[in-house]
């Protein structure tokens, strides 16, 4: 092939590809016109379930079905949703169909035999159908719409089988906006993040957790928000972390109900999870014990004692920190497991636990003054920010360091310069890295400004947003004491405010009460993401702890 003909072939390829991409983009983009909706769907909701729906010509139009539903269900909510755009979907592959809908923004319609049925984002959220379509187990990720569920709902509405819809119906994606224009989740901006708004949000998160503590002291560990069902599962480190946060909120609010909840949760740890681990005491169950449970329990017990909820918990701390110290290697790293049968530590490392142990030892020293705890905490911090994270590329790649940076801040006034300076440098670099991963306005189609993530097609999770904000505030606090540059401070403050605004926007249940069976039961909770409304206790804990840190920062 001579150069001339090769060049002509390549030019033709570029031209054909450019035209094809332009056509595909045009075909699948939506022309959104909020002033002239294509249809208006009126829905009546009661106890978190849709009981009637109808397509009307304008919001407020009387409809027999809607009126009857409202009359038969006192307290039901009527919602109008405008379909402001619609577009085609790819149905050749299941994965392409699942990925054809923007989570939380797009619904689906099906038309067959002259009838059209709509599933709006409200319904899809209510059925938790987003981010359930395509599973990528290798990276523990699930994206896309739950197509079988959506087709089942549509087929029920159209009186046809799901297979009929797949083969004969015309499926479209629809973009929906509330007819009343009341998108209350857009109201909280970084500029509105201040002491009073954050305090209210923190207490709401604490109240949510406190309401879920039963008489024995167990949390409602995992809750499906739309149905308010408690799901199975439990975890000691998360129980301890939640206890710590509820104790913080008890002190912040002065609310006796929250204080009793914190005490019940702490007592549950003391009475049901404290075990003998050789010569020391530890937290867990069974024969294989993980260090994280003990570390977070120390943090929780210190908080319960420090805030005066019950100072007797201070007495339990030394035997737990003795266990942590016994798990520490000579280089400062911790052995994260303990075999109670063999009475020996197991030298494996798991995510988070080293930072948690460093913070626990620091907090214990602050309360009780045992220098052994301080020395162990400092050695751990020195390891975590030094040899523990030193490899080719370690300045460009980071793990989850939120506990490390909280330990750094906690130890700041007691740490020698040769430990605290590299630790602050480490945390500032991690925050700068985090800012690179922080979504800005328009980086993702959903409500993502302030979130952290890896691309526009994955709904960002809110728990990392909370935990990174905890550590950003800790870094800012230490940085101010070290005299960081004003520009660095401004970057951190902006980063923090954007994430806090996001967390408060997503806190249940601003303007979305009708989607919930019992809005009061889940009010104040932080969901897994904008569209994942399963509520695990650590979601509220991390976000709430970040809010408490913000209040401490503004108070100082």
């Amino acid at each position, binding site marked *: 092939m001579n150069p001339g003909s090769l060049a002509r072939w390549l030019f033709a390829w570029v031209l054909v590809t450019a035209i094809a991409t332009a056509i595909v*983009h045009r075909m699948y983009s939506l022309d959104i016109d909020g002033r002239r909706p294509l249809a208006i769907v009126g829905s009546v909701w009661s106890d978190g379930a849709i009981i009637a729906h109808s397509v009307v010509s304008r919001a407020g139009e009387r409809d027999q079905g809607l009126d009857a539903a409202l009359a038969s269900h006192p307290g039901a909510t009527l919602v109008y949703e405008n379909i402001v755009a619609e577009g085609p979907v790819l149905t050749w592959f299941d994965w392409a169909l699942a990925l054809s809908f923007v989570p939380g923004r797009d619904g689906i319609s099906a038309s067959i035999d002259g009838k059209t049925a709509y599933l709006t984002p409200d319904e899809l959220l209510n059925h938790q159908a987003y981010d359930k379509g395509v599973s990528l187990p290798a990276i523990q990720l699930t994206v896309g719409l739950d197509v079988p569920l959506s087709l089942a709902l549509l087929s029920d509405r159209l009186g046809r089988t799901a297979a009929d819809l797949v083969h004969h119906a015309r499926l479209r994606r629809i973009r929906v906006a509330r007819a009343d224009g009341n998108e209350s989740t857009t109201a909280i901006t970084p500029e509105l993040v201040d002491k009073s708004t954050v305090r209210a949000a923190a207490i709401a998160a604490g109240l949510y957790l406190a309401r879920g503590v039963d008489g024995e002291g167990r949390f409602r560990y995992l809750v499906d928000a739309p149905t308010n069902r408690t799901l199975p599962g439990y975890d000691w480190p998360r129980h301890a972390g939640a206890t710590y946060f509820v104790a913080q909120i008890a002190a912040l609010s002065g609310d006796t109900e929250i204080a009793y909840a914190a005490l019940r949760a702490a007592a549950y740890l003391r009475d049901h999870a404290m075990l003998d681990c050789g010569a020391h005491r530890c937290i867990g169950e069974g024969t294989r014990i993980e260090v994280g449970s003990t570390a977070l329990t120390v943090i929780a017990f210190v908080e319960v004692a420090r805030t005066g909820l019950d100072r007797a918990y201070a007495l339990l701390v030394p035997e737990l920190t003795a266990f942590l110290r016994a798990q520490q290697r000579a280089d400062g790293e911790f052995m994260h497991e303990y075999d109670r049968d063999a009475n020996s530590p197991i030298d494996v490392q798991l995510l988070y636990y080293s930072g948690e142990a460093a913070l626990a030892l620091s907090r214990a020293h602050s309360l009780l003054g045992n220098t052994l705890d301080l020395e162990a905490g400092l050695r751990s911090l020195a390891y975590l920010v030094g040899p523990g994270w030193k490899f080719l590329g370690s300045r460009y790649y980071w793990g989850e360091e939120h506990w490390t940076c909280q330990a750094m801040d906690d130890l700041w006034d007691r740490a020698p310069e040769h430990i605290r300076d590299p630790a602050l440098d480490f945390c500032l670099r991690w925050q700068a890295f985090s800012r690179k991963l922080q979504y800005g306005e328009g980086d993702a189609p959903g409500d993502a400004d302030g979130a952290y993530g890896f691309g526009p097609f994955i709904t960002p999770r809110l728990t990392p947003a909370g935990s990174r904000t905890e550590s950003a505030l800790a870094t800012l606090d230490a940085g101010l004491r070290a005299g960081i540059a004003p520009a660095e401070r401004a970057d951190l403050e902006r980063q923090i405010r954007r994430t806090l605004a996001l967390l408060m926007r997503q806190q249940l249940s601003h303007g979305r009460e009708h989607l919930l069976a019992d809005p009061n039961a889940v009010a104040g909770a932080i969901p897994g993401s904008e569209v994942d409304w399963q509520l695990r206790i650590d979601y509220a804990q991390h976000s709430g702890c970040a809010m408490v840190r913000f209040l401490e920062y503004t108070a100082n």
Partner: protein
Amino acid sequence: MHLRRGALVIAAADALTAGLVLFGVFVALPARWWPVDTAAAVLASVEVAAAVGVLAPAPWARRVARTASVIALGAGLSTASALALTASWLSGIYGPVGRGGAIVLAFIATLVLPYLVVLPIVQLLWLGSNRKPVRALPEI
């Protein structure tokens, strides 16, 4: 001498591409899926054939090398088109993909373009400008 050196460089690039394709699909990917596995095996074979074709002192060798280059270029251009169409579909569905999306797509493109577009083009041009078999060169 220069032609021989050029042949060695191009053959080495072909072999490297074959190795990268095999490594990327059969080692780096966590699961097996026959369409991708088959395509990778075929592509790696084509690259090896191109390497042999560039170096072998036989009349058929250049035809093999040229055919292999065209197949590789076709695969590269098809992949690039598929990526571009996927990106335009995704941006149609999700709106502007932002900096993160652009980085991801550019990263994927850089993994494909050098080996499956640039190298075959260079090889085709080199084969076109040096029509004589390598063994016929007096310097060798």
